[in-house]
């Protein structure tokens, strides 16, 4: 963690036009919210030129982002620079004022809530302003871009969706040790609380961390105890349960792990990791029976187009994606099962041993 801190500091020192969100204590975030409110009221009450202010938010657009590598690491991530967009405090489907008010109160009580909980609270208090989770998430990110503090500093954490299993022993301070190699197939749930995560003691003899998109595949590999054949830890985000890696959305998820995202561009540098793509890829198509292929849906093509136009996509990924779009088909990982239920484990092990990942 110390090395990552120095790397981040060197990068920001070298390029002071890059923006980041600070991890702040509740009192500091509340102070920033208070400044925002005071500024707003001062403009309202100005004797000569009263105005309803708009807020300057760090612009989260592809025009305002770039890919940078830290000085001491091989990880590239998304960074945003000091370009601003102006947004009003209150807008249909983006009522930042409510989010700010709620976060102010949450922080005052020393609490931490899930994004989902925030959504339900806002839905019940102000249903005409928020009709879905996405709107709430967007408003939260706007408040992050205004106050320039991390989402968790606002008292909001991502709802926990992740699970892991494998050769890892977790030790939370003052808690029992958890041996993740002897758990049931649903694994150990990963908390969304970044504070707790940062305090974990971890010990492992794993050589590989395998990120699995689909929960069903994760469970299959967990039941087969792949980590007893290969020294590894399996992790899944379970965020998109019906998406396999052999389609554009899977690659999009990989890119998000790898570079972070523009939407959360102020925090991306903290969490990007150098993940590689193992499969399914173009070379594996011969393993898949013809009947298992599906047409690419409009949504898949939309994602593919967005990825291809992204400046971040590395050449090898671009080639794979282009092939995918040209054939117009996709296949799910389950398409390998006709070869036998243990085929998947062998497939993964072979690829790893041969270094066949990009």
């Amino acid at each position: 963690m110390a090395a990552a801190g120095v790397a981040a500091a060197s990068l920001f020192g070298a390029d002071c036009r890059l923006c980041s969100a600070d991890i702040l204590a509740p009192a500091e975030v509340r102070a920033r919210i208070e400044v925002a409110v005071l500024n707003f009221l001062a403009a309202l009450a100005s004797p000569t030129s009263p105005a309803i202010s708009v807020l300057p938010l760090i612009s989260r657009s592809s025009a305002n982002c770039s890919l940078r590598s830290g000085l001491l690491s091989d990880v590239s991530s998304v960074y945003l620079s000091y370009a601003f967009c102006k947004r009003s405090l209150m807008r249909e489907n983006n009522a930042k004022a409510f989010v700010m008010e709620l976060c102010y109160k949450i922080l005052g009580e020393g609490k931490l809530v899930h994004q989902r909980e925030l959504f339900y609270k806002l839905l019940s208090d102000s249903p005409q302003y928020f009709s879905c989770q996405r709107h709430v998430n967007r408003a939260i990110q706007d408040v992050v871009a205004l106050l320039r503090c991390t989402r968790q500093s606002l008292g909001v954490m991502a709802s926990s969706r992740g699970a892991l299993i494998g050769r890892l022993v977790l030790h939370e301070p003052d808690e029992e040790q958890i041996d993740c190699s002897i758990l049931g197939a649903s694994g150990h749930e990963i908390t969304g609380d970044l504070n707790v995560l940062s305090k974990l003691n971890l010990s492992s003899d794993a050589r590989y961390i395998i990120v699995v998109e689909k929960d069903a595949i994760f469970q299959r590999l967990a039941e087969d105890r792949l980590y007893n054949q290969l020294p590894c830890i399996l992790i899944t985000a379970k965020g998109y349960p019906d998406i396999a890696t052999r389609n554009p959305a899977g690659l999009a998820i990989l890119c998000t792990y790898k570079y972070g995202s523009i939407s959360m561009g102020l925090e991306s540098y903290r969490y990007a990791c150098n993940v590689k793509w193992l499969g399914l890829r173009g070379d594996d198509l011969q393993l898949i029976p013809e009947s298992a292929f599906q047409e690419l849906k409009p949504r898949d093509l939309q994602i593919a187009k967005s990825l291809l136009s992204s400046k971040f996509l590395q050449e090898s990924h671009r080639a794979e994606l282009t092939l995918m779009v040209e054939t117009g088909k996709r296949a799910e990982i389950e398409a390998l099962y006709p070869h036998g239920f243990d085929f998947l484990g062998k497939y993964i092990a072979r690829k790893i041993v041969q270094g066949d990942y990009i």
Partner: protein
Amino acid sequence: MASSSSSASSPHRKLLHSLVYWAVQRCRMSESPCRLTVSLKRPAEPASTSPLRVSVSDTGVGSKLEEFLELDALARETPIEKWDGTLLITTTGMFSVSIGTEVCLCLSNEADADDFILWLVGFFHKILVLRAAVSISELLSFLELDLLKIGTGAANNVDGRKAKGLHVEVVIVTARTASDFSCWKVNCSSTQVREYVPDLAESIAGLILSSNDKEFQDECIALLGLGSDQDISEGLVQSSISEKMVRIIELNDTKENVDTAPYLFECERLDEDSQLDEGDADEDMVFDF
């Protein structure tokens, strides 16, 4: 009459001199190309009592205390009928970074305002500017050219050598406006905002009253002009905020001429961020694609 706009000791000149000086200092501090903009709006009728509206903005960094001390001293010595001593200062950026400043004020419309403008143009001919590139293209598109007065100059170092690579263009824009209800258009108030006024006011009032920081609460209450001896309830704060917002919206609605002059901090179109329609995608917005 003592000091009119055309005399050397005119308060108008002193004020502009000071504001431009400090804007230039900020540009110098910035160490990168900056924009310095001076905008002047005058009423169409020469004898109008409506004020001259002046704006000096820059994209430099680093305001100094001396700037405000000097302006404060100027305010004291300036007759109130010439300048009411009020400045509207806006900075973009908050907390750690400031990337621009705009200072706006209203000056009395003197009989010899033309002379004042001429003086201002001449003033820019003589500015010594180091490492600041001044760009004026944004202003040009909005006004008829005969209202534009442009000054171009080359700045020389005091020891007589020509400064290398230095080019300064300054545009002083004068515009006529038909009506003058409110001085500045520094915000967008749309019809949407009017709908949201009660809820927005409620939200802010709720935030203020939930605070256990008495200083913050007192400051808010003072800004709203509510007496500290009054019984301050959330409803009172909410209606105070509401009233102010409604008044601003009404003022803007009744303006006959919509200002099109490009202030440095003009509100951008409130368009929806372009997002792929995620259908039933739920949780984290980490996903860009």
